[in-house]
């Protein structure tokens, strides 16, 4: 196992600059008001760089650059754009460790995840959309002998994207790749909790992208996010975040009559049917891991399987095994490749998680594991660490209904298939779900009956490019991670052509 050196120290894979400006028009541009904010590493709770505190004036500069770049970028061939996306993917691959350590330092997640998931998936995502745009055809239809309808995909123009902090690079890439493939230029605002790693990436990319095609303005939601989302100079706004801001974004989009895709979280059920425990074999082990994945990325995943539904005959035994399994998860220095559970991304996130553990206890939920903040001591003593926590309770508890965004699992039991589906769907959200069964018919039916955009069957937390991702119900609008996302970044141009010499005959 490896412990990566702290960024900035001798032998470190990455050294952050002391200060980052905004990235506008292919270069660093100081924020108009000259203000910066400190970026804190959740690993040790200490600031490690300063980042521009952008405002409406900076968003305007970025929009200027994006508008300047849009006509030429929009006219490039799919071949050219795909080549650029593939180059970006190659650069990401070539800098895997650097980016993985940067991401871990900014977000607090274990480097084993950034090395194996976040960064490789980001590279692959660019390659997927490079391929998808090459393979995309327009439509045509011969409407009658002399009339042909041609449909062309055109870029929207300049689009705005607001990125969450839980997978800072990967979530940016989920939005950037389809937007760029489709020929749009972008103004992107990262989350203020994790503004730095994407800047490390953009600096590596240098001028692989023409100036102004991607512009990054950091800052706070009210000061930079709102001017971007409400600007009449964007043709689309994409957002991942919470429901109130999601509604605000949709409200701003309605004022400008532009499309908006929003991904707004979930409270995903993970259903284990009795037959999972028919044998104590590799599949049972896989299901146990599937249960413990609630603590993956410290639970800071929109699709975290934060409600486990166990069928009654196996409730005690499966839970007992799963609690034990979860208790073995290694929590520690996120830069250690052995670490499985790292730090929560921010202090307020830590406080929020602890407040939900508190209400869980007050609601009468039974604590089966964890429930406390962790002090890892030494340099990590001020980091934001929470024990993987398991509660037993029932689905009406707030613990079961709110996205805590932490390593907190709510477990309940169900009688039969109908009961399982009823509990699974008794939620505001519909982003993810898991179904575990050795019976393919049951697993298939459950997968179709659960009202969620992504149902993992006999697996969980896989995010391969190509598999459409997005929400039902209050979890949002739109799909990412699949060629469908191109449609969210394209206009449809219809050319209706008459090849007849003859007048219509009306006048």
């Amino acid at each position, binding site marked *: 196992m490896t412990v990566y050196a702290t960024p900035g120290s001798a032998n470190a894979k990455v050294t952050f600059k002391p200060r980052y400006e905004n990235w506008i028009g292919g270069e660093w541009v100081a924020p108009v008001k000259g203000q910066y904010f400190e970026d804190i590493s959740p690993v040790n709770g200490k600031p490690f760089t300063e980042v521009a505190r952008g405002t409406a004036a900076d968003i305007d500069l970025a929009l200027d650059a994006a508008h300047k770049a849009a006509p030429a970028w929009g006219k490039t061939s799919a071949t050219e754009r795909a080549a650029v996306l593939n180059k970006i993917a190659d650069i990401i691959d070539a800098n895997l460790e650097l980016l993985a350590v940067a991401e871990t330092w900014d977000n607090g997640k274990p480097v084993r995840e950034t090395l194996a998931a976040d960064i490789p998936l980001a590279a692959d995502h660019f390659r997927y959309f490079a391929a998808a745009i090459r393979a995309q055809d327009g439509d045509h239809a011969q409407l009658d002998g002399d009339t042909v309808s041609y449909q062309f995909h055109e870029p929207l123009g300049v689009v705005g994207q607001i990125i969450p902090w839980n997978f800072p690079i990967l979530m940016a890439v989920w939005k950037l790749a389809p937007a760029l493939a489709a020929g749009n230029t972008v103004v992107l605002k990262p989350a203020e909790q994790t503004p730095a790693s994407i800047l490390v990436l953009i600096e590596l990319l240098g001028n692989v992208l023409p100036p102004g095609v991607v512009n990054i303005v950091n800052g706070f939601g009210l000061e930079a996010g709102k001017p971007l989302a409400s600007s009449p100079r964007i043709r689309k706004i994409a957002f991942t975040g*919470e429901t109130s801001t*999601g509604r*605000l974004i949709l*409200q701003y989009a309605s004022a400008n009559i532009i499309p908006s895709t929003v991904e707004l*979280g979930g409270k995903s059920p993970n259903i284990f049917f009795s037959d999972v425990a028919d044998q104590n074999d590799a599949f049972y082990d896989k299901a146990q891991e599937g249960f413990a994945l609630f603590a993956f990325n410290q639970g800071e995943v929109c699709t975290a399987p934060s409600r486990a539904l166990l069928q009654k005959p196996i409730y005690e035994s499966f839970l007992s095994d799963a609690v034990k399994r979860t208790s073995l998860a290694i929590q520690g220095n996120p830069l250690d490749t052995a670490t499985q559970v790292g730090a929560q991304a*921010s202090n307020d996130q830590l406080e929020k998680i602890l407040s939900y553990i508190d209400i869980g206890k007050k609601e009468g939920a039974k604590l089966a594991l964890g429930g406390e903040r962790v002090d890892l001591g030494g340099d990590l003593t001020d980091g934001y660490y929470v024990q993987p926590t398991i509660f037993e309770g029932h689905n009406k508890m707030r613990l079961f209904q*709110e996205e805590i965004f932490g390593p907190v699992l709510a477990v309940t039991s169900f009688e039969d298939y109908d009961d399982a589906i009823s509990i699974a769907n008794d939620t505001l959200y519909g982003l993810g779900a898991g179904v575990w069964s050795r019976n393919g018919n049951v697993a298939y039916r459950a997968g179709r009956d659960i009202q969620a955009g992504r149902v993992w069957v006999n697996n969980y937390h896989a995010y391969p490019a190509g598999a459409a991702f997005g929400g039902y119900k209050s979890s949002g609008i739109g799909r990412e991670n699949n060629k469908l996302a191109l449609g969210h970044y394209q206009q449809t141009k219809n050319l209706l052509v008459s090849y007849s010499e003859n007048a219509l005959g009306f006048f």
Partner: protein
Amino acid sequence: MTDTIPAHPAAADDAAARDTEAGNATATIMASVTVPGEVIPRVELLPVAVDLLRSLWQEYGPLMFHQSGGCCDGSAPMCFMAGEFITSDQDVLLGSFDLAPAGDDPQPLDFWMSAEQFGYWSHTFLSIDVVPGRGSGFSAEAPRGVRFLIRSRLMETADPFADPATVIPVGPDDETTPEAA
């Protein structure tokens, strides 16, 4: 000229410390009862939240809260400019505060939640606190390096775990818009 915001501003720590000291000039503010048919308040502002809101009011003018659900910064109260967030019949007014010190002109501040979410939350009483933090959607306090946070306890009277389907969504009265309240 540059100006850097510290990660954990002394102001927030001071406010938290003040909150616990005896003789704190700021008192907890209990919301008025606004849910039709109810007689017991559902939400309160802890002193540290009152101080912060009064300060934000000076900077931005009238404010409102909408309790967020879901994802990264969610499951937390969002503080917007009053009227910025358009409420509808799909929202419940949980309570209204008056931030003004006694004798001053009223400073009304409404606390909203989506009706759907209220269906799952109705058995809990909410206290609005402030913690050091970073970021919060479009909420107004983020640039101060602090974050509003909900603390909860069970309501003494409400049916603890009523079926959400039986909770009737209560929208705003025609005259009770955030601007007018």
